[in-house]
């Protein structure tokens, strides 16, 4: 599931916007700078999140990151080592966005509900 720092607005995010956030096209939301946290692109949770939630393949995300990083048009995501670090970092970073599989019960974390279609 998608998680965010509690500072981010509670209203739902659409799938197209979520794809834009994780492909680093959308870098701010309602005036707040977003920081995207991901696991290593070879981590099974990253692959599952990419394919099942975003509906894209990890190589497409990697390509999108390289495009923004090396054209100066955006920033890359921050890679974290583990699910625990993901929770810790997102809870600590205003504007932080990430994902976890399993319980996301952590102070400072908001679970982002996908807007119903």
């Amino acid at each position: 599931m998608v998680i965010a720092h509690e500072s981010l607005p509670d209203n739902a995010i659409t799938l197209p916007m979520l794809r834009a956030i994780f492909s680093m096209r959308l870098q701010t939301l309602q005036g707040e700078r977003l920081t995207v946290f991901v696991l290593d692109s070879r981590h099974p949770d990253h692959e599952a999140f990419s394919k099942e939630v975003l509906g894209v393949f990890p190589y497409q995300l990697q390509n999108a990151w390289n495009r923004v990083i090396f054209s100066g048009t955006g920033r890359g995501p921050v890679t974290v080592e583990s699910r625990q670090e993901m929770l810790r970092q997102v809870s600590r970073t205003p504007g932080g966005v990430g994902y976890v599989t399993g319980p996301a019960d952590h102070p400072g974390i908001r679970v982002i509900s996908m807007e119903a279609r």
Partner: protein
Amino acid sequence: MKRSGKGICIFLAALCSLWVGQVQAQAGGPLELHGFISQGYLYSNGNDYYGPSRDGSFELTELGLNARYMVTPSLALAAQVVSRRAGELYDGDPRLDYGFVDYRLLDGSVVGGVRLGRAKIPIGFYNETRDVATTRPGILLPQTIYVEGLGLRDFYTGVDGLHTYWQWFTDRGLFQFDLGLAVPTTMQDETQAAFLRTQDAPGKLRLTSGQNARLLYERDGGALRLGATYSRVRTEYRPDDLPNPPLEAGETSVDALVLSAEWNRERLSLTTEGVVRRLHPKGYGPLTDGAFTEAGYYLQGTYRFNHQWEGFVRHEQHWNDTSDRSGTRQSREFDPVPGVDREPHRFYQHQWTVGAGWRPTPQWLLRAEWHHIDGTALTPLADNPEFDQGGGQARWDLFALQASFTF
């Protein structure tokens, strides 16, 4: 052309020190640093490509370092310095690849903004990151679209001016529109030599006007990507004040349309791009007469065996003038010119490429590819001065290896 080993060394040292800085930079902070380094090896028969590749050449080295600083959520500063050594064409002197102020006016489901300064021109799928090995679909980009040897490159890479962008994220897909306006600039000597297709033209080549527009559409997160780019460039050549200049004053207009399509599955990607480029030179002396149309396309299939290994096959075709695809008429036009003789193979280039890539980690990429080529239109004259004396081989092969690291 001079070699600048010293410049590369200084640049490498700066790169290393900044890399250390990057480790210290706080993850997720307002400052981000990234870089790339790649080294190629080329071996060919028939003609040279990026240095004396018939004997084996290491003259393909790309180094880059960039920084992006978010001053406020809507204001960012971004710059990249690149050193690129590519045979006789580019000597590795570090240059500012891009450097701009990025002001975002809109965020949310519509993103829009302006960039002021030097930015990479979005053309097709790859132009903005063309010097970064890991972002390319092979060691060498399809040359008919991402021209190198014809001297058009510098009209389409870091261009000074105003660049606007707009992205719309909808349930029907993503729409992106980029519009760039260039300010007039004087082109560097290598570009001038390649563009005028002679090493011997004292004077100045200027870009007097340039505009670029790209529309991009991505469906289902990029399962299907479609793009259309139109770019318009006007140039002017003024010879130095000498008696009997080898080339008289002239102007050239270049109008290009690039269409792009890509289909992505988990293992397979199919990519195709085509270009139609209308060139209209006026002046320069007695040889020039009227406009002509350059065209080309490529089709590539990439297959990912697993996370680390991929292979690809690509077919490319290119004609300098679509009304003379064999090049015989264009070759004959040089018959009355003293001291210049160009074979028909200088006016087209078609090729098959097979390649493989290995990514042991997301940062490292090792590639090998083999090109079977017919023609030399997209092969640098600077690496093959004999092309102007009726030399060069029509049919030839090029083998390339490249290692790249990005951070």
